[in-house]
């Protein structure tokens, strides 16, 4: 585990650096794949950047709304570069709503745009696994298996590696290559997006099995129940998009 890299007086948080690199690479992939889907050059970049900025602002505002008294006595802290002062749910909501508004106002094709954004999301999933590996977060249950790793006083499942490998598999399976054997399943507009959700949900169900932490509901992990519901919803959406052409042809 390498939580920080120290360069003289400069302390770089490795997980943050990994996520930043993942974001940069994912954005490049998304832009390239957007152009392949006939989305004008630069539109995907703009969408991602503006949504990111809106997400960060939303996350900070969400945190301020959570602890308003803390900012009354030190209002300048609003501008502090502290990742701890971000509310993730508020940030995700703000980024999602901003992306929706941009897609509508710029008249971007919804499904091809979402399909292109999968390249960013899938790359970020890989980066998140690596970030967990660097920080030691999302650690596994104790195990006697030979590939277990020594972590936090125990021989444990390398859940961060499982997470990274599964995310890499999702990225490879959904990579928009001509010779991809799965291309038939992810070619129609919108199917790549739904397939990403479905495969990520399956990955989540598998990786969560080995994690040491978590909350239970009726004896099973809450996170797996949520992932299972997402899986059902995304399979429904995938089927709808996959056969939408046939439905249209029938109705004609």
């Amino acid at each position, binding site marked *: 585990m390498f*939580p*920080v890299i*120290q360069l003289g*007086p400069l*302390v770089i*948080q490795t997980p943050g650096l990994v996520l930043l690199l993942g974001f940069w690479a994912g954005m490049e992939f998304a832009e390239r794949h957007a152009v392949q889907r006939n989305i004008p050059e630069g539109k995907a970049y703009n969408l991602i950047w503006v949504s990111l900025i809106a997400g960060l602002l939303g996350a900070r505002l969400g*945190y301020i709304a*959570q*602890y308003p*008294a*803390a*900012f009354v*006595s*030190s209002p300048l*802290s*609003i501008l*502090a570069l*502290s990742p*701890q*002062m971000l509310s993730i749910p508020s940030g995700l909501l703000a980024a999602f709503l901003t992306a929706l508004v941009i897609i509508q106002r710029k008249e971007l094709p919804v499904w091809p745009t979402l399909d292109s954004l999968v390249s960013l999301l899938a790359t970020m999933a890989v980066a998140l696994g690596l970030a967990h590996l660097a920080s*030691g977060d999302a650690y596994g*249950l104790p195990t006697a298996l030979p590939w277990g790793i020594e972590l*936090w*006083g125990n021989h444990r499942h390398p859940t961060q590696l499982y997470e990274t490998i599964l995310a890499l598999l999702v990225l490879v399976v959904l990579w928009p290559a001509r010779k991809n054997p799965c291309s*038939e*399943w992810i*070619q*129609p*507009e919108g199917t790549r997006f739904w397939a990403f959700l479905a495969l990520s949900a*399956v990955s989540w*169900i*598998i990786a969560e*099995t080995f994690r*040491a*932490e*978590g909350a*239970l509901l009726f*004896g*099973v*992990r809450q996170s*797996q*129940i949520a992932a*299972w519901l997402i*899986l*059902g919803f995304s*399979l*429904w959406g*995938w*089927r709808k998009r*996959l*056969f939408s*052409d*046939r439905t249209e042809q029938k109705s004609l």
Partner: protein
Amino acid sequence: MNYNTSMLTPRTFSALSLVLLGLSAAWIIFTRPAPGALEGPTLTLARPGFQAPDFELQTLTGETVTLASLRGKPVIINLWASWCPPCQAEMPAFQHVYEDYHDKGVVILAINLTLQDREEDARQFVLKNHLSFPVLLDSDGDVERQYSTHALPTTYFVSADGIIRERVIGGPIAEALLRAQIERLLHEIP
């Protein structure tokens, strides 16, 4: 646009989807954790979600402080050295917060990593900045090792039941973050 989906019909997709949903439901149920298998915050480790390692140190005024004796109170542990510019920059924020929350039972422990510093420099720094919270001396580097200090300053927020809730590596820490974390720790006390 037409795609060759001849191998794949809506019916086969639905059937495969149901199989996948069934298999994943079975996986979730049959691999569910055994009672008590999931780890609570019982391990002692200097990272969020774990019990904060205990220590016994002397203050600049010669009193002995142990972390265990502060159980029941939210504790903020700040690891610092007098030569470290971000440590110097954030100390006034700790003092402001201490003045506001001391009466509510919040404890601030500024642990000077004395192996990397000089006791006299630490003392001068405290006098110059009028710091009134306890400043502890980690003279033999025990806390530095226990808390695997990668960078200075590092701040830990420890709940009343001794669990590390947050760790901030580097600085200077924002005063609002200090206040927000303290509010969170106070809110957790039943």
